Structure formats: C-alpha cells, structure tokens
C-alpha cells in the first residue's frame, strides 16, 4: 500500500510542477521567481499538518502506550522540521529578489521560525535519550507542550508586530481569488501533504523494523 502511495505522490508532485509552470500565470511584477510560492506555501502548510499529527500521536501514545503512535510522532517530527526548514529556505529565496531581503521579523516568519526551533528541540531530545520507551514518553510530553504553546506563540508574536506598528507589507501573495493561481496551489498542497504522508509511512515502517530487530 505504501508503494501505491509513493506512486500517487510522485504523480501529484508532477502534476503540481506542471501546473506551477504551465497553468499558473507569470506574475507581473515578480517574474518567474514567484512560482516558488507553489512550493513554499504547501511546504509550510504541510508542516502544520505534521505538527498537529505529532501532537495527536503524542496524546495517543500517552494514553495507550502504543509505540506505533510514538513512531508516527517521531516520523512526523522529522518530516515536519524538514518541511519547515525547506519552507523557510524557499521563502528566503523568494524574498531576496522580490523584496530585497532574506529575512524579516514580521509576525508570520517569526512564528514559523519559533516553530522550527521548538520542533528541532523535539528531535534533539529524541536524539539524546537511548531508552526508546523513555524517549517516547518525554517526547510525547514535549510534543503536547509545544502544541499547546502554538496559539500562545501566534498571539504574542502577532500582537508584538501589529500593536503600535503598521502591519507588515511582506505577505506572501494576496489571494484575490484568481483560479489560475488557486488551482496550482491546491494541487501542490495536496501533493506535499501526500509527500508528508508517504515520508511518515516509510519512516515509521523503518523505525518499527529497527525496534523489532532489537527486541
């Protein structure tokens, strides 16, 4: 089944690529570099999915102590961090020629950066604990604390940037409802979510094989 998923993902990514270059219009002021958005936005959104799954899987693990749930959380964390990292990188690549800067501390970027560091810490914690059962427990607790922190991060950063300060101009492309932009975006979003699921499935399987080899 994972193999079918793999093919499906590849197909979706290909479709997304075609649409990003073929169907989507060339942006008037930014030029072709704007097409990076079709990768950048899905990456970030898919990472949000990853972190939600991580939080849920962590909760499931704490309740049922099923290591399968922990493996899903672990894999989700890895893919999520990778996607956020790539998302930030693609955002910077888009930002430099478009707005003249690699980075800015506006609300959205700051929140995403904090997310990245938080979940990087999650992976670090995993890396330092040898006992798989203890790693599962501690990371589950951290995963839940991090997830509960996300709304707090969102509000605090948003208020920090918008109160007594004009809203940032660097929003990644306003969606004025043009379908020729929306469809490629949605297709790519689906493709990246499939990619996330595929990666997690493969990774979780690998983790299980590792665990079974030892026991």
């Amino acid at each position, binding site marked *: 089944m994972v193999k079918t998923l793999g093919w499906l993902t590849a197909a979706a990514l290909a479709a997304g690529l075609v649409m990003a270059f073929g169907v989507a219009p060339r942006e008037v002021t930014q030029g072709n570099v704007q097409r990076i958005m079709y990768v950048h936005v899905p990456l970030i959104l898919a990472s949000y999915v990853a972190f939600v799954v991580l939080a849920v899987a962590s909760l499931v693990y*704490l309740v049922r102590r099923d290591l399968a749930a922990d493996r899903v959380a672990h894999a989700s964390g890895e893919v999520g961090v990778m996607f956020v990292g790539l998302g930030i990188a693609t955002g910077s690549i888009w930002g430099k020629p478009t707005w003249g800067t690699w980075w800015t501390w506006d609300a959205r970027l700051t929140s995403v950066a*904090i997310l990245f560091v938080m979940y990087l810490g999650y992976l670090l914690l995993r890396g330092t*604990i040898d006992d798989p059962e203890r790693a599962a*427990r501690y990371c589950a*607790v951290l995963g839940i*604390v991090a997830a*509960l922190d996300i709304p707090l991060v969102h*509000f*605090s950063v948003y*208020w920090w940037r918008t109160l007594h300060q004009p809203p940032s101009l660097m929003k990644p492309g306003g969606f004025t409802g043009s379908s020729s932009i929306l469809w490629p975006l949605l297709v790519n979003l689906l493709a990246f979510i499939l990619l996330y699921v595929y990666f997690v499935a493969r990774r979780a399987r690998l983790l299980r094989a590792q665990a079974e080899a030892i026991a």
Partner: protein
Amino acid sequence: MSYARRALAVAWKDLAVERRSKETLNALVFFSLLLLFVFQFTLGGDRERLAAVLPGVLWLGFVLSALLALGRTFLVEREHDCWEGLLLAPGDKSAIYLGKLAGNLALMLVVEALVLGLFVVFFDIDLGRALPGLLVVVLLGTLGLAAVGTLFAAMTANVRARELLFPVLLLPVQIPVLLATVKATEALLLGEPLGAVGHWVKLLLAADVVYVVVSLLTFDVVLEA
C-alpha cells in the same frame, strides 16, 4: 491530606537545603552582579538608549537567572541517588512537581527582587507608580518560566548534554511569556496603567494556567521509571 503534605515536604526540603548550602543562591547573586556590570559596560553610557532597552535587558537578566536556577533544581537529587527515592515515592507524583515549583518560584522571585533592586540603584531608575503593575507582571511571568522550567528540568535531569538541552528546549517554548513580559514592562515603565497592557496580562495568565495544568497532568509520566 497526604498530597498537600508531600508537596509541602518537597518545597520545605528544597528551601531548607538552599538556605543552608546557599549554593544556588550564591551563584545567582554573583551572576546578577556580573550581569549588572556587563550591561553597564555595554549599554550604560547613553541614558536614552538604556531606557529604551531596559525592559528587554531586565527580562534577559531574569531569564538567564531562571535558566541557572531551574537547570539546577533537580541537581540536589542526583547526589546520593535521591532521584531514585523520588521515583519510588508512592502516590501522585504531581505533588512533587508542586513542591518543586513552589520552591523554584520562591528562589526566582528572591533573585529577581535583587536584580531589580540592583538595576534601580545602579541605573537610577524611578519605578514609582509602575511598581504594583510591575509586580503583577513579574509574578505572572516568573510563574510561567518556573512552571515549564520545572517540568523540563525533570525531563532533562538524566539525559546526556543536560546543560545544553535544557535551555534549548525551554527558551523557544517561553517566547510568548518573554514577549508578553517585556512588552508589558516597557509600557508600564513608560507610565501606562496596568489596564493598558491588559491583553498581555491575560496572555500571561492563560499561559500560566496552561503550563501548570499540563505539567501537573504529565509530571507523573516524566517521573516514571
């Protein structure tokens, strides 16, 4: 009630040990003085610039002290296998968390009072009317730091690279608290009333509730063998 007695026993023990050994307290006092010097040499000359960065610098001092204090909170248990003793304690382990939290909170507030006092004296700051509001913000912010800090300290107490992992885990999660406290302090020091920073105070309250509740619920899990 056994739960309350156990929590009190832990809090009392921590404070008694600290009062007699003064290890952490001495380190924190010395550290605060050091911070004072560093801030003076890097920022002190220009009064206006100092006033502008003061809230951030003050809370930086608080956070660094908190990292020191919280990072050490389970250190005393690591001698003589006392950690094992806590692990084997019967009943709800969250009582131990509450005791530790109370002890940490007391210690941190003492050090923060000292740092604030030093700042007022050496940087000639007039707290005046801002003081009550400031106390509220400091209390809520410190509780937020201590709540998650105590939980994470327990998690990292026995892992490799403990000293590095603890701040790495704690700081990103504490950014909302940091933002709220710095912004609120800034406004208060500029003479605004507490009501003007009501949203920050509410955020701190929400954060405190979330952190303490989650820690109480999950401390048992962390302290499992």
